[in-house]
Structure formats: C-alpha cells, structure tokens
C-alpha cells in the first residue's frame, strides 16, 4: 500500500514559547482511520494545522502523496481535506453556496462541481436543508457542513480535528458512521482526546503527549498493551473486603462507595467468573461487573514515563 502522508522531524514552536511539538514522524497509508490521541495541549491541533498547510513548521517536512508541502503547496494541497477544530464556515452563505465555493477553491472542474455537490450533500444528510443559511444551522449540522467541505473534492487525505466535539449522543453515532464510510475510500487522520472514540473508529493509533509521539502502532497492539488492570464490581449487599482479597488473583481492593468496588488484579481475565462465584457464595447479590478500561490520564501517565517505542 502506498503512503499518503509522511512527516519528517516535524517541530514547531510558537513565538517565545517552548516547543509545541517536537520531532513528529508519521506515516499514513491509503485507506482507513488513524487516530491521533492526546490530552488538551498535547500538540494534536498544531500537528494537524501543519499537515494541512495552515501553519508553517519551524522545522521538518510534510509529504502529501509524495509531494513536498512546503516546496509545492498548490499541488500537495489538492489532495487534502481539512476540518479544523472550529468548522471554517461563512455564516452569511447558504450550504449550497458555501460548498460550491469550497469546491472552487480546490480548483475542481466547473462541470464536475454540481455532481460532487449533490453527492456530498446526500452523504452528509444535508440535501433537505441545502438552501438554509449556515448561520441558522444547529451545531450538529454545522459540523456536517464542515465534514462535507473537507470531502467534496475527494482528497486522498482527510484530516479531522476533534470532529465529534460538542455533538449530542445521536449526532455522535451518526458522525462516527459517516467518518467510517469516508474512510472506505480516503485516508483519514482523526484527532480526539477521548480514548473510547479512537478505539471505536481507528485501525491505527498515534499517541502524542507534550509534543512528542509516545505510542504509535495498530489498534490491536494498543489493546494488548492496555490490558485492563482492574474491574468494577457493583453489588446489592455491601461486599466484605477481606473476602474479596481471598479470591485468587485479586491484589488490591478499593471501595468507591459502599456497594461499588474497584478490584485490582494481575493478568488473568477469568477473574470475573471467580468474582461472580464468590458473590454467590457470600450472598452479595451481584448486579454488575465490568472491566475498568482505565482513565485516559492513567494511560498517559503510564505511557509518557515509558521509553518511546
């Protein structure tokens, strides 16, 4: 598979500040979603802005489809679709006008624009409101127009900077579905600070912390790496800590409330079964037992203290 995006030693510092990102090396393939994960201020947006030419890097190079972004920006940028954190919309235009304009900005052939417009509106569910002013749209629809704008010219690389920010649960599901569809024929680079979202969508994950890549591998490798270390147990009758500790494999017990316990264990995932039988035995009336995926902060702490892979 050919490489669509490649960065070499990408570094950036804002005026008089410390390095926002330092020595970022990425390679993204032709199809599928690559997740860029990081806490706020980790350098996700800076990286994406540089990749899309909205910001000039202090050092380093970006290659889009093998074309150097700095040397030949016009050619390279034809292959990029970018949705920044705030969708770049003109509030005084209608959806049709805005999308046509964004197609024209990408030097699309006038003959093909009309068809591309219908197609992208269909895809993003905007057909029925296409003559509305953007200023009057709800947040979810604005986000969709933002996504439509990024894919109308069928770029090889689509970059979404926190595309699901501020959406309600229904819109969230729709947006994720849409992004998955887009990834079928585009390479998608997506950033988020929500681990579960990345886990749901991406085939590869790149984790940034403090401007540096701390983890970069496939999702499967990440899941293996991120083995749950604890389970959450909810019972009707308060469980006894001493009895819990007797269950094989349990290393530590932490009571969150009287009826909810976080149980740390080592390795073996059959722990749930043993906990269930312990509950039966002592009559705690088990209501829920689930793997605690771990707070993102813990993951970061763990990763950022380890050597870069």
């Amino acid at each position, binding site marked *: 598979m050919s490489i669509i995006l490649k960065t070499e030693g990408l570094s950036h510092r804002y005026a008089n500040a410390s390095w926002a990102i330092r020595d970022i090396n990425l390679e993204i393939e032709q199809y599928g979603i690559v997740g860029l994960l990081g806490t706020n201020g980790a350098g996700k947006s800076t990286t994406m802005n540089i990749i*899309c030419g*909205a910001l000039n890097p202090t050092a380093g190079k970006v290659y889009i489809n093998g074309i150097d972004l700095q040397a030949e920006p016009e050619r*390279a*940028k034809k292959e990029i*679709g*970018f949705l920044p954190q705030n969708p*770049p919309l003109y509030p*005084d*235009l209608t959806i049709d006008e805005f999308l046509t304009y964004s197609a024209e*900005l990408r030097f699309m052939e006038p003959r093909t624009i009309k068809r591309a417009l219908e197609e992208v509106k269909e895809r993003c569910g905007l057909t029925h409101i296409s003559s509305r002013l953007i200023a009057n749209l709800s947040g979810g629809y604005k986000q969709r127009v933002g996504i439509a704008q990024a894919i109308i010219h069928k770029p090889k690389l689509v970059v979404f900077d926190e595309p699901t920010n501020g959406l309600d649960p229904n819109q969230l599901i729709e947006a994720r579905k849409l992004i998955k569809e887009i990834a079928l024929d585009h390479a998608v680079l997506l950033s988020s600070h929500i681990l579960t979202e990345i886990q749901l969508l991406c085939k590869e994950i790149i984790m940034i912390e403090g401007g540096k890549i701390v983890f970069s591998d496939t999702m499967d490798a990440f899941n293996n790496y991120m083995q749950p270390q604890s389970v959450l147990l909810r019972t009707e009758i308060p469980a006894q800590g001493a009895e819990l500790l007797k269950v094989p494999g349990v290393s530590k017990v932490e009571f969150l409330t009287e009826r909810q316990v976080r149980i740390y264990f080592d390795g073996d995932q059959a722990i749930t079964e043993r906990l269930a039988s312990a509950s039966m035995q002592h009559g705690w009336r088990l209501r829920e037992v689930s793997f605690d995926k771990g707070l993102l902060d813990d993951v970061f702490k763990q990763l950022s203290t380890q050597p870069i892979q």
Partner: protein
Amino acid sequence: MYSNSYLLNLYNKIEVKIIFKIARTELRNLFYSPVAWFLAIAFLVQCAVFYTNSLIPYAKWQDVYINSTPKWKDFDSSLTAVLFLSGDSIISSALQNLYLFVPLLTMGLISREANNGTIKLLYSSPVKVRHIVLGKYLAIMVYNMMLVMIVGIFMVTAFFNIRSLDYGLLLSAVLGFYLLVCAYTAIGMFMSSLTNYQIVSAIGSFIIVFVLGRIGGGYGRNMILYGT
C-alpha cells in the same frame, strides 16, 4: 524577474478564474450582511445633503442676479467646478468624509477570516495568498464602483440642470474619486491583515485615511480650483 513572470502568470486562465471566484464570494459576504447596504445608503444621503448645500445658494444668487441685473448672463466661473469641486461641494466633501466609510468597509476583509477560522479553509486549499488578496481587493473595487455610481446620480441630475456642462471636469473628478477610494481601501485592507480585531483595524485605517485626507488641503486645493 519576479514581476514579469507574475504578470504572465496572471494571464493564466485558472488563476484569473479563482480570483474572480474569491471576489464573488467576498461580494456575497459583503452584500448578504447589512453593512454594505447601510454604508451605501448613508453615503447616498450624505452626498445628497452636500449637493443641495452647494446648489441652493447658487440657485438663489442666480435668481437675485436675474431680477436685479437685466444684462446678467452667467456666473464668470465654471458652474460645474463650483457645484462639484469647490470647498464644500459634493466631491470634496465626500472625499473629506471618506474616512468614515472606508474603515467600516475594510475592517473585516481579512481579519474576519481569521476570526471565523475560515482562513484555515483558504490555507488548506491550493490557492495562493496573492489570489486571496487580489480576489478580496477586486471585490472591494466593485463595491467602490457603487460609491462612484452614487456620486454619478448627482452628475446625471447636473446634466439636466447645468447648461453647457463641463464633461471633462466631471469625468476626471469621478476617475480621481474612484482611484482615491481604491487607494484608501487598499490601506484599509492592509490594516485588516495586521490584526485579528476588526475594531483595531478600523481605528488604524481611520487614522491613516483621516490624516491622508487632510494632507495638501486648504491652500493647495484652492490653487488647483481657481488657478491662482
């Protein structure tokens, strides 16, 4: 060498097209918001007031002269020049007051893009910065044409009211007016690119245009007008 190849490039069809498209969208933005309309209406009212201000006294004098001096034929200065170019007439007053309009018109040209975040759309598109700048300037030049047309309304009325109108004078005045407005809006657009705050860019261009509008005023202007 750069300017040569640049001019050649400008004839490149695609480049010209994209400039026109950016200009068209900018004009849409301008006219879909009330700002452009309000400014045009305010300018129209202002011009009307200036025009009648200089017209009425002359009409009265003419009346008085005709009644009191049977042999009186005409004023011995050019009526066109007096009505359109003298100190408190329509074009010189409009020029004096341009500093009220230009900053409001140009303050958002570029800083609005930065504020909306739409600058990222432009930066991530394969357009060059000069396309954006030229497109936006073209749009504002078209708007300036509208201001000229407003002044033109009064010239058309003058055509019906003044016998043996001095066309050359009027046309050169209009050309001068248009070029000056274009120069001012270029300054305003530059100020707009310096800051993300629309108000700051408005104040900046306000000051510059105000100062420039008063350079060479007074004595110099009278010299040109009355040939002394």
